[in-house]
């Protein structure tokens, strides 16, 4: 490098047209020689010499080096630049640069930069390797944020301030922290000889820091819209769903636990789920088998606990469900009687069921009738009956004409549905009729008023048609 500098200086002198009038070293005596690589065509005499090209100059230097080595060394000595001594080397300064809020949430975007100043001449600068180090809340030592160092090359400092700034893309936020509190950041950098920390410098003006202290906090999860989906009031075996909406500003996975309390306030059951924020958590009673027959007639309450591994909270106790008492009724002898033995589709059918209440308290029970044929699957008869059941047997009767002509010649089934459980724990009883609906389609006889009327109209219209056509077209 020093040789290069020397040659540049020589070239500068020659190109600028000095009055030396050609650099013909001649022999050791210094007199001009027959070296034809003269800078001037005139030889001798200063001023007005022609400019030399670089290639010519290089050829000339080489010839001097070969032919006049002593003179060449003398020239080099005159032009040689003294090297810088390492004793004047100034260790570069590195600080953290940060100009955001120092109290941030875990999910908040942070931009931390490293700023370096290197006042050494470029010739003696060294490449700088640096790391960002972090001390997490509750920790006592720093650790590197990334495994790979970043570099600052010797020529990457600004000319005016001899400084440069670098960012840390690997540090976007503190979401990975599982604790909250004070986080400290510092720089560690080396040029291969000197190892330094940004903490070596004191009283640094902002936005620069020898070490950066950030207060990192966590946004806790939130739960809202607590409700129970299902019948109201339900029976113990009705499907119920506990639902709630869950959110977390930090986007953390949330653990939600449902606690069901009995009427004494003691916890009966609990169940947990992990859910992403923004979703609805749902606990189905059937899936978790929260309730059994023993719970009929009882009142329950519930609450949730929920957390993101940093903050754990609980809701207030909410009311529900309140189960209906488990009334059992006794049903027997379901039967159907057609109007007559013919079982025509248009006839009335009497559907009957004997019932009584097994509990001493009276209860209102609603009964519904359904019939099913191949053409009409489980059609509900339009009327239902609500009966006050006592321990005395009663007969529930439905007089219905539930079939139409498309059911003729088919069998059928029927079902009584009731609003309380029977002795088998069911809420309906299904029976298949052993006979068939009569295939006869037309409900009247020909020799009847309706039958003869039908025929008479056809004949009359034919006659009228004949009269009309004859008068209109045949005359």
């Amino acid at each position, binding site marked *: 490098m020093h040789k290069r500098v020397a040659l540049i200086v020589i070239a500068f002198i020659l190109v600028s047209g000095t009055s030396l009038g050609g650099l013909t070293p001649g022999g050791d005596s210094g007199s001009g020689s027959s070296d034809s690589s003269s800078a001037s065509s005139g030889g001798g005499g200063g001023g007005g010499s022609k400019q030399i090209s670089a290639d010519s100059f290089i050829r000339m230097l080489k010839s001097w080096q070969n032919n006049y080595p002593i003179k060449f060394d003398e020239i080099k000595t005159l032009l040689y630049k003294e090297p810088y001594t390492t004793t004047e080397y100034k260790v570069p300064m590195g600080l953290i640069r940060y100009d955001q809020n120092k109290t941030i949430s875990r999910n908040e975007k942070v931009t931390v930069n490293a700023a370096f100043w290197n006042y050494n001449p470029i010739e003696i600068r060294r490449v700088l390797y640096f790391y960002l180090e972090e001390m997490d809340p509750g920790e006592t030592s720093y650790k590197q944020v990334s495994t790979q160092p970043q570099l600052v090359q010797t020529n990457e400092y600004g000319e005016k301030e001899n400084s440069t700034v670098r960012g840390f893309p690997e540090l976007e936020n503190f979401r990975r922290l599982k604790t909250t509190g004070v986080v400290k950041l510092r720089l560690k950098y080396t040029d291969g000889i000197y190892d330094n920390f940004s903490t070596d410098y004191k009283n640094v003006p902002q936005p620069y820091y020898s070490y950066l202290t950030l207060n990192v906090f966590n946004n806790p999860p939130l739960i809202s819209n607590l409700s129970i989906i299902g019948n109201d009031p339900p029976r113990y075996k009705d499907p119920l769903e506990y639902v709630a909406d869950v959110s977390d500003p930090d986007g953390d996975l949330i653990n939600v636990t449902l606690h069901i309390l009995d009427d004494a306030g003691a916890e009966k059951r609990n169940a947990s789920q992990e859910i992403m924020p923004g979703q609805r958590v749902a606990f189905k009673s059937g899936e978790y088998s929260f309730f059994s027959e023993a719970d009929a007639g009882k009142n329950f309450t519930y609450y949730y606990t929920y957390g993101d591994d940093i903050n754990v909270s609980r809701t207030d106790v909410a009311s529900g469900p309140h189960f209906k008492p488990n009334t059992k009724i006794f049903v027997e002898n379901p039967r159907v009687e057609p109007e007559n033995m013919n079982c025509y589709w248009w006839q009335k059918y009497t559907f009957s069921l004997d019932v009584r209440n097994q509990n001493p308290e009276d209860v209102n029970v609603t009964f519904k009738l359904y019939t099913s044929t191949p053409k009409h699957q489980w059609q509900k008869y339009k009327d239902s009956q609500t009966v006050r059941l006592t321990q005395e047997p009663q007969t529930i009767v439905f007089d219905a004409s539930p079939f139409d*002509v498309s059911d003729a010649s088919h069998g059928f089934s029927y079902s009584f549905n009731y609003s309380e459980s029977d002795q088998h724990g069911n809420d309906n009883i299904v029976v298949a009729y052993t006979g068939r609906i009569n295939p006869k389609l037309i409900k009247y006889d020909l020799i009847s008023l*309706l039958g003869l009327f*039908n*025929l008479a*109209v*056809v004949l009359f*219209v034919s006659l009228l048609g004949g*009269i009309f056509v004859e*008068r209109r077209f*045949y005359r």
Partner: protein
Amino acid sequence: MKFEIFLLGVMVIVILIGIGLHFVNLKRINDQVRATSDREFDMKALMKALQLRQGSNFNTWVLMAWSMLFVAFFFLFFLTPSVFQTWNYFERLPGIASGGSGLLTFGLGVIILSGVAAFSMPLMYRYYAVSRRTKRWMIYMPLPIILSLGTSAYLGTIYPETNYWYWMGACILLIIAEIVLLLPIIEGLVEGTS
């Protein structure tokens, strides 16, 4: 069931033969007149010249007879599933068929749909000198047709029960009525060839 369908085919063919014979007669007359005439004429003019009045009462009765013949025909073959299991009134429109006016609805429908054909058939008679005896026979034909129609309607009311002899009787009555109603054409053919 195949025999019933065969009988249906017979009845349809008889009508078609009757219509065909009518045109054969007309053509024969046309040829005969051309052979003996020394002037040019067209068929239309000949047909107009051949027309004979048959009388209002006669026309009215045969119009009614033909209309009812078509109704009775459809009642016999297409009212119940006894002949065609799928293509029948009871199967296709059970709700209407089983109603209080099911039979008359079917009858009126046939009258409307076959009206053009039924009321056009007697037009053929105006080209024939129908004898008084033949006219008398033809005027009586509504009676067997009504009987056939009533029998078919009765079979519909007792369905799914059936009575083969009733059905055959209704069918035979219809075939007889059909042939009698085509007598003028048959007689015209016989006279022309003799």
